[in-house]
């Protein structure tokens, strides 16, 4: 119920929370007034530094503060920076060479276009969105069983690559299933709100966890689109004064009317042989397990009273009627599941085998939303207790925000397809006539004072390390005001007027001279603006967890190019999976899936891959709008000793020996450029050469040239600069 509390805090301020009076004076807060395009500051003395309006706003403030901008970063830094920012991968040596030797005046702009057109761009920026979508590959809670929802992840990648207008991107994720003639893609998009946890513990109340997932959907909606969930991220049951409480439940009502089905479709790329092999292996394994447990199960069975048999499900009863040595394999499994104790490992394997046997596994499935034909009524939950209904409420939005309009009538009249209109009619909630699609359109409306600001701010944050509003998840009265309010509004209006094009926004920001500045520290700024809030230089940013992996993979030459598909299992240290409540297997992929980008690593919420967790990947339990950047010895241990990173170092050593000509110096330069894009400075080269010579002496020539180069590769992959966007 965070959203509501946030709204209230934001709207009326903490002091009057307990007041029963309706919130007023709300209009005064900057974020609740729609952005208006401000005039550009005139900066005659800085004309050469103003590439686009961003620079005018930034320089105007800098001038007030008595600061001067930094020079443009050198071309090596620039191409690595913009490649990492737009695609999440460093440039190849050939790309670097081409750019630094390109004397055309629009060389940089052409580079940006190439990167925006790369399919890698969609991967990079999908991951940005997946953080707020709390995407993961498992159900969470303590059982944390795997799930398939990667089609949603792939939908986001594709949406970024085709530059789906952001308002449409919002609508399809919140209510794609309700659009007239909704396509499969639009239904897949609704996976956004299926990224909630699912509780599979025994003895739970299904309704309670359904309600919890609705609460999470509201909180996530607030964080992702309105910037209004603040730090009370997980307050699970503070209740509110009557009016506010009612407004909360009116929002709740939009999300209270869904079924949560799986969408299944044929899989064109299916490997039938692999599935057959999996079936055979599972059959063997389970049969062995059943044989081992036979005596125990027989004992259990003999102890069953008639009443106990009666209470079993029908398939179990059927199976028990059959003499134990005459039972089919399926019947033996069913009996074991009923009598074998809570054997989660067996259960997981059995479920998988059944899927393979009955053909479900031969389909791709993904989790989607579907509006119920019979709407649920929504009531205020007295004291937050879902079992105690108070007043009935209809769907609606807080009075303090822009008005919501039913768009159903328009849709019907505009659509030539009568059936679509009727389908919508059925899903209209009673009384208010508003449904989830109306809500989605309300969020994505240009009248929404928050959406465009919140999104441009989070994009900005990605490029500079912090937002124009530093409290990116709190645009309410408790948050910090924007450092550059006119710039924020200018960007927000520009974003909307450019048809909500994220690619235009990227182009604008990375094109600015503000973005292109050097990130080197300056003694004058250290005293005048230590936190660099005026952006008189760029910021050095440690790469996100997935990118730490990607950069090493790319340098090693091992990276598998495939985009999308089921999540994969790169190696991870022993002792990660073994201690969750349910022991889950992590069998490292041996083939090309071993070398996929970090964003495709299978993400178990309860036991995330340690190389991701240690570099601050979000836990996916709730929406994450900003990653922390820690810097610990555990990260060093990972890069030094982790099996995967050691393998990358071996790959890099092999690659250097394979690709570069014979002299040490040429090879060192090649290796250096694979990791850092720039050529080494003489003293850097000397350090590496000294190490190489020592390694030759220590390891002996016979143990191989390769050993020395492995050491060099490990050094380069561990450098601060390698995992930093300069």
């Amino acid at each position, binding site marked *: 119920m965070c959203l509501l*509390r946030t709204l209230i805090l934001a709207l009326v301020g903490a002091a009057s*929370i*307990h007041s029963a009076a309706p919130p007023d004076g709300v209009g005064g807060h900057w974020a609740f007034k729609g952005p208006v395009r401000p005039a550009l500051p005139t900066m005659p003395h800085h004309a050469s530094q103003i590439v686009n309006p961003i620079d005018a706003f930034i320089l105007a403030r800098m001038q007030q503060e008595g600061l001067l901008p930094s020079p443009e970063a050198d071309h090596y830094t620039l191409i690595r920076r913009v490649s990492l920012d737009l695609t999440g991968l460093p440039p190849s040596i050939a790309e670097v060479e081409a750019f630094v030797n390109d004397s055309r005046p629009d060389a940089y702009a052409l580079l940006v276009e190439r990167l925006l057109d790369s399919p890698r761009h969609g991967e990079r920026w999908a991951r940005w969105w997946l953080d707020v979508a709390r995407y993961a590959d498992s159900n969470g809670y*303590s059982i944390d069983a795997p799930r398939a929802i990667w089609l949603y992840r792939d939908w986001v990648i594709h949406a970024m690559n085709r530059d789906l207008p952001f308002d449409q991107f919002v609508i399809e994720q919140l209510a794609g299933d309700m659009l007239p003639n909704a396509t499969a893609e639009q239904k897949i998009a609704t996976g956004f709100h299926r990224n909630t946890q699912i509780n599979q513990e025994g003895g739970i*109340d299904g309704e309670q966890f359904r309600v919890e997932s609705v609460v999470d959907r509201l909180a996530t909606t607030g964080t992702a689109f309105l910037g209004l969930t603040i*730090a*009370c991220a*997980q*307050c*699970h*049951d*503070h*209740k*509110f*004064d009557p009016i506010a409480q009612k407004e909360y439940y009116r929002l709740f009502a939009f999300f209270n009317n869904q079924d949560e089905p799986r969408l299944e479709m044929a899989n064109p790329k299916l490997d039938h042989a692999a599935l057959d092999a999996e079936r055979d292996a599972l059959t063997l394994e389970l049969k062995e397990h059943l044989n081992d447990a036979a005596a125990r199960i027989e004992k259990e069975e003999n102890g069953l009273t008639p009443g106990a048999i009666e209470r079993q499900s029908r398939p179990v009863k059927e199976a028990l009627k059959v003499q134990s040595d005459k039972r089919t394999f399926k019947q033996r499994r069913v009996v074991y599941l009923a009598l074998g104790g809570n054997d989660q490992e067996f259960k997981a394997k059995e479920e998988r085998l059944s899927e393979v046997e009955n053909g479900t596994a031969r389909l791709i499935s993904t989790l989607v939303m579907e509006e119920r034909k019979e709407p649920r009524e929504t009531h205020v939950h007295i*004291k*937050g207790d879902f*079992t105690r209904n108070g007043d009935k409420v209809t769907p609606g939005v807080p009075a303090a925000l822009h008005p919501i309009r039913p768009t159903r009538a328009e849709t019907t009249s505009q659509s030539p397809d009568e059936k679509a209109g009727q389908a919508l009619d059925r899903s209209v909630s009673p009384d208010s006539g508003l449904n989830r699609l109306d809500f989605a359109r309300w969020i994505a409306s240009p009248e929404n004072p928050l959406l465009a600001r919140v999104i441009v701010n989070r994009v900005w944050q990605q490029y500079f390390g912090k937002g124009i509003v530093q409290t990116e998840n709190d645009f309410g009265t408790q948050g910090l005001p924007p450092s550059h309010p006119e710039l924020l509004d200018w960007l927000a209006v520009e974003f909307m007027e450019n048809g909500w094009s994220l690619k235009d926004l990227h182009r604008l920001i990375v094109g600015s001279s503000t973005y292109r500045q050097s*990130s*080197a*520290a300056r*003694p004058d700024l*250290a005293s005048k603006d*230590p*936190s660099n*809030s005026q952006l008189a230089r760029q910021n*050095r940013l*440690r790469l996100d967890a997935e990118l730490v992996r990607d950069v090493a993979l790319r340098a090693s030459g091992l990276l598998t190019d495939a985009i999308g598909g089921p999540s994969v299992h790169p190696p991870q240290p022993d*002792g*990660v*999976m*073994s*201690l*969750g409540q349910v022991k889950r297997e992590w069998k490292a992929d041996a083939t090309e899936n071993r070398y996929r980008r970090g964003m495709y690593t299978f993400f178990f919420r309860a036991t995330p891959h340690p190389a991701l967790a240690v570099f*601050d990947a979000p836990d996916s339990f709730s929406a994450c709008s900003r990653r*922390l950047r*820690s*810097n*610990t*010895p*555990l*990260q*060093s*241990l990972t890069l*030094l*000793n982790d*099996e995967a990173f050691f393998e990358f170092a071996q790959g890099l050593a092999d690659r250097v020996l394979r690709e570069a000509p014979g002299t040490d110096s040429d090879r060192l330069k090649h290796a250096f450029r694979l990791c850092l894009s720039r050529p080494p400075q003489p*003293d*850097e080269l000397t350090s*590496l050469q*000294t*190490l190489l010579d*020592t*390694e030759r002496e220590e390891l002996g020539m016979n143990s191989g040239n390769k050993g020395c180069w492995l*050491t060099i590769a490990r*050094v380069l992959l*561990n*450098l*601060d*600069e390698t995992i930093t966007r300069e």
Partner: protein
Amino acid sequence: MTPQNSNPLQDQTRRQFFGRCGMGLGSIALASLLSENRLNAAPDPRFQNPLAPRQPHLAPKAKNIIYMFMAGGPSQLELFDYKPKLAELNGQPIPQSFIEGKRFAFMDSSHGIKLLGSRRSFKQHGQNGMWVSDLFPNIATVTDDAAFVMTCATNLFNHAPAKLFMNTGSGLFGRPSMGAWVTYGIGSEANDLPGFVVLQSGPRGPRGGSVNWGSGFLPTTFQGVPFRGTGEPILNLTSPETIDAARQRRTLDTIRDLNLKRLVDTGDPEITTRIASYEMAFKMQSSAPELIDLSGESEATLKLYGAERGKPSYASNCLLARRLVERGVRFVQLYHANWDSHGGPGENLEDDLPKVCREVDQGSAALVKDLKARGLLDDTLVIWGGEFGRTPMGENREKTGRNHHIDAFTMWFAGGGTNPGAIIGQTDELGFSPSKDRCHVHDIHATILHLLGLEHTALTFRFQGRDFRLTDVEGNLIPGLIA
């Protein structure tokens, strides 16, 4: 250059380094970090190895801290704050006189208004006659070593911000945690382990995650290092098979040299932390396996804690905490969830509270006893408490529970110059508000720093033009807590 040289900063590198370096403080800190020669003379901590031990402002009573953080807000009314009157009035609405003029949001709807008497049985223990309920049979045996503060008060009533407040003195992101302040203030005695270590147990980590042990605006060197709560506490401690220690050292020396050059070129203090992280990682490869290997602990010790070798638990974290402070680690924080007894499934007072109490009771008490037996309790401050307490009014859901309460809750302290056996503050007869000696979080922070020899008003860091403190602009020492 000799790659295995024990003094990693060669003269030549040093000259080159200062020659190229245009940036003052960070680089000087680094020079010192890389030097074996620790100079304690310079008064400004930034001029030294950031984690070198430093003299505090006053003569310290405590050297180390072990902070057992009970995530979710334990119910003081079921554990320590015995209120027969509350039981007597069970089921009645809370009298208006108790709540009049009090600030609490959402009173009408969010808190139940009916009082809930505790169903636990309470007894007095030790010389000080401290009331402890049947849920803590072991903690009840150390009441004479501990000082109980019955009247803790905080500002924020939701988990994540309240945890931040308890850890950083502010509900906003971006402030340093207490462990970061302490290691910033007095460094750490541990050469080969981080100065601030975080241990976790229970079904999940604390809400808010790593911001609870973050360094905020302090250099990242001071942030807490979280050991894993499941499986191996620290992964990747072993070098790859073909890499022996000498080769690892040579590799690290070159990584350090190149990082150093980059530091000089960019002036980014984050690289200082990166270099320190690599040095620490190398040291941990030798020190940490020994640290986490409990095979040297006697059966009697394991039994005292209720810990089992190879099985992560709160109890084994308590034992690990003792091993960490023995090795000079300055600040150890243990998190255990879930104490959020609202009454819903997994969170009721009837079954779930006793379960979480069983998980922590023995280990918490054992730690005090073990530290005492080893002579470590005198200079180790043990802290036990959550982010807030729970209301005298009940919440009825599936079963019974209580809501979050910020006006009065119990924490206890032991060793490190605290007053053994003290009972500080008193709540009204329903346990709603302090009737004597309210101890706000800022006061608790001020007192903890004082025990470490740090003046809370003098431990400051200038950020964005202002001197920040753990205690903001508040904080008074709690005299009764200090021996």
